[in-house]
């Protein structure tokens, strides 16, 4: 059933956020440390185990791929509810600081990505021409 997939997703997010909060408390800070990242790892692990056990059918996967394909629209809604005015009206320190930091960080991405085993990374195949959402359902093969 579709709801099994959605419920698994919800459970992973909740457990991940809980562990993130506990990790934050252990570090003595009032912030969630990697809750969403932990949830993602949990989901990858659970789906892997359930698929191997053969109890995660196409309908349940549909519950996951539905939410995964709603990702871009949700990001568009997020963009439309950002405090863009606040960013623009922050004055020269905010503008210069933000832009310089982003430029330097961009430049360092390929440098770090080439360290260690990362240098074997190959570009992924060209995207298909449909909204950029199709690829998520198959595992990317790089």
């Amino acid at each position, binding site marked *: 059933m579709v709801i099994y997939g959605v419920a698994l997703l919800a459970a992973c997010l909740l457990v991940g956020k809980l562990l993130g909060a506990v990790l934050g408390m252990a570090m003595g800070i009032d912030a969630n440390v990697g809750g969403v990242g932990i949830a993602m790892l949990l989901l990858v692990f659970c789906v892997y185990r359930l698929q191997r056990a053969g109890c995660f059918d196409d309908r349940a996967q549909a519950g996951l791929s539905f939410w995964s394909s709603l990702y871009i629209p949700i990001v568009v809604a997020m963009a439309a509810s950002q405090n863009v005015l606040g960013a623009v009206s922050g004055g020269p320190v905010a503008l210069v600081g933000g832009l310089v930091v982003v430029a330097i960080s961009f430049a360092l991405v390929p440098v770090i990505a080439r360290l260690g085993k990362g240098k074997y990374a190959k570009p992924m195949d060209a995207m298909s021409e449909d909204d950029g959402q199709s690829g998520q359902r198959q*595992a990317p093969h790089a």
Partner: protein
Amino acid sequence: MLDRLTDILSSNALITAFALVGLLMLGCNLAARYLTGGRIHGSAIAIAAGLVLAYVGGIATGGEDGLADIAVFSGLGVMGGSMLRDFAIVATAFGVDLAELKKAGMNGVIALFVGLAVPFTIGAAIAYAFGYTDPVAVTTIGAGAATYIVGPVTGTAIGAGSELIALSIAIGLVKSISVMIFTPVVARRIQLNNPSAALVFGGMMGTTSGVAAGLAATDARLVPYGAMTATFYTGFGCLLGPSVFYLVVRSLIGG
């Protein structure tokens, strides 16, 4: 009649948001295909359009939530809020290649630390160049250059005033929004076309919303890798900002 319509729209705010975003994406996909000949991604245009709408909403209402501050569009705040955003981000992990994760995991961790050191240092240097010499001010602005959450958390912890905290939020917002806009533009040049680079990218940039939107506009298959490291960034930033970073700044410029 018009009252009835706005009533229906605002009492079904989330549904209105679904319809509105769908319409916006349709328009942007058509524009991408016919105006740019497919050179620019429809989702990149849609995200940029969302930011422009957020600016318009900010001017119209003076609020902090962009277009979502207008009652009929308030559903955008729910649809794009952290609850559904995190839910959808985790869903993208369905399709992650475990081998890629193992291969580049260490680089992701390195990127996290470099990704925090760079904005702390550059942000602090720029604050100093603009005449801020108080270590509390320099630290708060530098932390804001990490993310707009690390800035206020750090500032509050070390006793910065509210105008400094506002400035640290502004610098974080500029970072987040420019990551959204420029990622698809520079993706090819910084070789952001494979899962390992996306893992590093998430750790370097750290702004979850910026990384999420920037990668979505570049290649949606990269999103889970970038998002995974980015979600650790703010937590570590909040840990290092008021402690290590503040101590370093204070030992350098006294106070």
